[in-house]
């Protein structure tokens, strides 16, 4: 095609062919160049991720050498004495995330069911957009609301009632100072609910209408259809949404830092202050002067990285499996 074009032009204006051929050659040369540039950009993702892991690994060499694997199970965190154990932080991170999921999962999934099954499509997408906005609120603002809105509310209303009702349980025993694992868990719950609602709603909407109609035709009520047909069909995507929420909760920094109390202790009571990995790094990194302390904080970061990568990786695999599964059935 191209050669035809050049030849016909060449016939009409004698001076043109050289110029056109040159332009043509340049354009052809631009192709591999453009390809190379895009390839390099895509590959830079791998380079950056690898570089990140390498930097974290290299910069915690000192604590790795000194404490080895016992860093992970050490209960003591004493920068002055130079003794570092990550267990209180791992404990705080996991406990707050579990509280968050226990609250957010049932609420989120049932809100998703309502939005997907009962609300008319147009209203549903408007409400979903509002929920997405909730996910866009920066975490430092959740922290601000946590300090000045949630913590006073918990101290004045929720915790007294809770302690009167179930105060005999060790997890709700002891004094409450406002900042605590419990408060952090609730802030995290508010922060991750939008993820669960948003993804679960989409997964539920993707369940083929024929499935529902078949169930109705067998005489099921709407709820039976949801419970026995729609949810099982969508279960992998829903698990994935919970895993993504978990990964997000584990790594959340600012909001947690502001309400968790920042005390490196392992207490049975959820009402006691605690500490999370991300909060420790955020709080202590700029104040750390000893190399060993810095190294310990970087190693904490590495531990958090490993945890979130595993959880995220699982979530992504679930999503892939869902996409593939639907491909087969559909």
């Amino acid at each position: 095609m191209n050669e035809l074009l050049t030849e016909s032009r060449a016939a009409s204006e004698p001076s043109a062919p050289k110029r056109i051929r040159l332009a043509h050659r340049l354009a052809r040369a631009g192709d591999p160049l453009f390809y190379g540039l895009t390839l390099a950009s895509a590959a830079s993702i791998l380079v950056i991720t690898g570089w990140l892991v390498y930097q974290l690994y290299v910069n915690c060499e000192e604590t790795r050498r000194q404490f080895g694997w016992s860093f992970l199970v050490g209960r003591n965190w004493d920068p002055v004495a130079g003794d570092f154990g990550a267990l209180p932080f791992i404990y705080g991170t996991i406990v707050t995330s579990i509280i968050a999921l226990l609250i957010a999962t049932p609420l989120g999934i049932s809100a998703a069911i309502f939005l997907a099954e009962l609300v008319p499509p147009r209203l549903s997408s408007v409400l979903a957009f509002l929920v997405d906005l909730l996910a866009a609120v920066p975490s430092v603002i959740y922290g601000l609301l946590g300090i000045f809105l949630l913590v006073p509310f918990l101290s004045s209303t929720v915790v007294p009632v809770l302690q009167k009702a179930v105060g005999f349980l060790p997890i709700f025993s002891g004094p409450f100072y406002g900042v605590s694992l419990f408060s952090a868990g609730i802030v995290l719950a508010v922060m991750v609910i939008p993820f669960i609602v948003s993804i679960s709603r989409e997964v539920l909407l993707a369940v083929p209408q024929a499935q529902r109609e078949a169930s109705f035709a067998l005489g099921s009520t709407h709820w039976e259809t949801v419970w026995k047909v729609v949810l099982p069909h969508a279960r992998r995507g829903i698990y994935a949404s919970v895993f993504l929420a978990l990964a997000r909760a584990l790594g959340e920094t600012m909001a947690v830092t502001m309400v968790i109390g920042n005390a490196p202790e392992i207490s049975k009571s959820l009402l006691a202050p605690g500490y999370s990995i991300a909060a420790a790094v955020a709080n202590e990194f700029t104040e750390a002067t000893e190399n060993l302390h810095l190294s310990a904080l970087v190693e904490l970061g590495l531990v958090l990285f490993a945890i979130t990568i595993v959880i995220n990786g699982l979530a992504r695999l679930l999503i892939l499996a869902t996409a593939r599964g639907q491909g087969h059935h559909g």
Partner: protein
Amino acid sequence: MGRLRRRKITNAVMFALTMLSTVAVIGVLFYILGYLFWNGGRYLNWQFFTNLPAPVGEAGGGMANAILGSGKLLLLAMCFGVPIGLLGGIYLAEFGGRVFPFVIRYVTDLLNGVPSIIIGLFAYTVVVLRDRHFSAWAGGFALGIMMIPIALRSTEEFLRQVPRNLREASLALGATRAQMVLTAVVPAAVRGIVAGIMLDLARVAGETAPLLFTAFNNRFWSSGLDKPTASLPVMIFTYAIGPYEDWHRQAWAAGFVLLAMVFLFNVSARLLTFRQHAR
């Protein structure tokens, strides 16, 4: 008939519960946003936009330096993150085979899920340790890395929506692949791509953790890009956990400004893509 009745009651009760959950979730949203905008709006004044922070312990002052600082950091982040994201997205949508793009996508999603505080640690070890001081460069680098995954994935997604015909027509007219992508495919998807980048900006605009030990903070104007630089999110954090009432008021005002900015980006991105779908 008793059984049918029980089933119908279960049906009603369960859906009522799902409705309650929805009302709770949406209600919390409106409550906290209302609280923030009401509270922040109350404490917002012109000084906030024009003045430097007052000396520690004194009332008054503003966050002009933090607003400018946030702008600088976002600009740096865009210069670094957007080109890589765009070109990488073009690669995934237009070139590439089976295995390599799969790996890229997977790793991109993982990088997107890495907690922001860890991106901050990375930028610290790479930029701050080398320079031996905090700087806007380091903060911009951290935010830029955070921008890449979303820029890349959203670009890819919108390029994929461009119909095949357009590509074939362009090639049939004698365009090379690069010309096809740059003059036909990208312009056709440009609204979506811009919307994706706006969402991306909205996300990193509120990031605090990666800035704590990269851009750090500054109570004065920072004279260049290699000086510690104030930003709105870090200011909110510092002021919220600080001991002064006046600081708390300013934190609310700053929260108002930050959230308004984030929502503006979000809503405009939504409008951009909405119009495209409507066509």
